[in-house]
């Protein structure tokens, strides 16, 4: 038997340090948003009204539910319920995929209306209107990329649980992946009201 060197608290804090940089990354976008909103409140309002609040709300609720399932997966593994934990990871992935499918339909509708970064329609519209959609596509695109990374990550974690590499005794990998997933949810908790509700 080999001696194992582990520092679970250190591993978690390392994950938090990474998450701090993620928050700074998205804060930059939120600040640009806030400054532009203060400059063009009317244009932002017109642009925001073209977004579908229902799809936005449903996607928010889907993401909140996926945060619930990944949290439950941690408790499950800590209680040695391996199968349940894997199922909960897979449900989380399923919800994330549904989120992305909704996002795909949303983006398609906008692109079909000629609204996408660099489009002629945006070039001809009011500066605030164009700024709103450029920020919208960049922010939701970056967030969507995070969702995609999360899907891959949680998929790997589910496989590791199945192979017995993550257990009740050593669950830090799952806990850190859940931290990442909650951060993606946390970012959306602000993206949703900023783009769909406030303007």
């Amino acid at each position, binding site marked *: 038997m080999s001696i194992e060197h582990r520092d679970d608290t250190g591993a*978690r*804090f390392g994950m938090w340090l990474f998450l701090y940089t993620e928050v700074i990354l998205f804060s930059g976008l939120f600040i640009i948003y*806030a400054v532009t909103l203060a400059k063009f409140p009317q244009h932002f309002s017109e642009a925001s009204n073209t977004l579908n609040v229902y799809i936005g709300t449903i996607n928010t609720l889907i993401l909140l539910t996926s945060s*619930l399932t990944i*949290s*439950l997966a941690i*408790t499950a593994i800590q209680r040695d319920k391996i199968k349940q934990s894997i199922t909960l990871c897979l449900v989380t992935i399923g919800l994330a995929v549904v989120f992305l499918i909704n996002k795909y339909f949303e983006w398609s509708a906008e692109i079909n209306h000629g609204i996408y970064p660099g489009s002629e329609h945006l070039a001809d519209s009011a500066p605030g209107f164009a700024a709103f959609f450029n920020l919208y596509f960049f922010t939701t695109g970056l967030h969507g990329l995070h969702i995609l990374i999360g899907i891959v990550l949680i998929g790997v974690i589910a496989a590791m649980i199945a192979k017995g590499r993550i257990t009740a005794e050593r669950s830090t990998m799952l806990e850190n992946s*859940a931290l990442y997933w909650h951060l993606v949810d*946390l970012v959306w908790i602000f993206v949703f009201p900023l783009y769909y509700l406030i303007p």
Partner: protein
Amino acid sequence: MEDKHAPVPYRTYFQIWAVLFVLTLVNVAISQIAQYSLKVWAILAIASIQASLILTILMHLKQESKLFRIGILTLIVIVAIFIGLTFSDVHYR
């Protein structure tokens, strides 16, 4: 320092989820009925409550040591300075 957390009961997670769910719907309702100036701050306040619930319960900050809390506090201060300086720059341009 405690290296391992005690498992959080399923029920706690379900309760937090229910609160987050309802607060999201409250935010949507506010956006449909409230006046603009009131709406902005009310919605951001509720989103912040949701964020703090996610941080403390779902992300287990409640069970972590002081170091984690100092970290997040530092982050919030840095972001606040970031926002404050940007707005004062834009305002006095």
